[in-house]
C-alpha cells in the first residue's frame, strides 16, 4: 500500500491557528472604531466600504508575537495619513506637518489598534514598537483578516496577517 505525504498530518498536528479562527472583521472594526473615536475624534467614523487607494500609500504596523504571530498593518494614502495626523493632534498640529509627525501619529494609531487586537488573541503575546513605511508582505493569504473601510471618503485598510510559515533562510555563500 502506498501513501502520499500531503503534509496534512503535520499541519493537523500544529497547534498554531490561523487568524481567521481567532478574530473576525467585525471585531477588528470594533477595535478600530474605538480607536478612532478616542484618538481621531468623537465624530469620526470608519465606514465599512472598500475604497480605491491612491498611488502613494503609507503603512504603519506593529508585530504581535505569541501563540499567534503576525503583524497588524494599517494602510492608507499618504495624504490621508497626514489628515489623520492633523485630526489626532488637533490644536497641537504644526502648520507644516513633517514626515516625522505623520510617522509618529500614524504609528501610534497602529500601536493602539494592534495592542487591542493582541488583547483579543490568545496570550501571552508581546507587542513590538510601531514601524512606518511600506507594508510587510503577506506571507500566507489564508492567515489574513483584512478590513477595508473609508475614513472621510478615503480608503484605509487594517490587515491582521500571520508571519508564518517563516521566510526561507537565505543561502550562505
Amino acid at each position, binding site marked *: 500500500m502506498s501513501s502520499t505525504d500531503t503534509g496534512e498530518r503535520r499541519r493537523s498536528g500544529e497547534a498554531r491557528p490561523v487568524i481567521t479562527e481567532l478574530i473576525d472583521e467585525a471585531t477588528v472594526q470594533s477595535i478600530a472604531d*474605538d480607536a478612532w473615536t*478616542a484618538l481621531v475624534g468623537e465624530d469620526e467614523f470608519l465606514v465599512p466600504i472598500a475604497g480605491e487607494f491612491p498611488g502613494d500609500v503609507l503603512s504603519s504596523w506593529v508585530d504581535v508575537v505569541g501563540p499567534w504571530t503576525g503583524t497588524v498593518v494599517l494602510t492608507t494614502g499618504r495624504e490621508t495619513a497626514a489628515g489623520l*495626523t492633523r485630526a489626532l*493632534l488637533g490644536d497641537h498640529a504644526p502648520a507644516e506637518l513633517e514626515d516625522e509627525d505623520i510617522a509618529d501619529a500614524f504609528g501610534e494609531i497602529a*500601536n493602539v489598534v494592534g*495592542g487591542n487586537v*493582541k488583547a483579543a488573541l490568545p496570550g501571552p503575546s508581546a*507587542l*513590538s514598537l510601531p514601524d512606518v513605511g511600506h507594508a510587510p508582505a503577506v506571507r500566507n493569504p489564508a492567515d489574513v483578516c483584512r478590513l477595508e473601510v473609508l475614513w472621510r471618503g478615503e480608503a484605509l485598510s487594517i490587515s491582521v496577517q500571520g508571519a508564518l510559515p517563516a521566510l526561507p533562510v537565505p543561502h550562505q555563500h
Partner: protein
Amino acid sequence: MRALVIDDSRAMRRIVSGTLEDLGFEVNQAGDGQQGLEVLTGGWVPELVTVDWNMPVMDGLQFVAAVRANPAWRAMTIMMVTSESEHTQIVRALAAGAHEYVIKPFTADALRDKLALLGLLPQEVAL
C-alpha cells in the same frame, strides 16, 4: 499639581499633556523611561507620572521598578497609559508599583475619572 508624561509617541504625549493641562496640571514630558528618570533625578518631582509601556531605551515597567526602588519617590503616583490591555500585563504593572492603569484608546473623561479615584484632581476641577 505637577505631572510627568512619558511616552515615545509625541502625538500621545501631546494628547495626554493637553488633557492634564486642561485639568490644571503643570506638565513636563519625556520620550522614554530613561529620560523620565533624568527629569526626576534633576529635581523635578511631580505628584503624578503617566507612563507608556512599550518604549525604546527603557520601557514603562522598568521605569516603574526604578522609581519604586527609590524611597524618595514613594509618594509619587504612577499611572500606566498603554495599549497593553492583557490582564496579565495589568497585574504585572500593578505588582511592580503602578497605582492605576489606563488602556489606550481612552477618552479625556476616562482619564479624569481615574484621577478622581486617585484623589489627584485639583480641587476646583473636582468640585
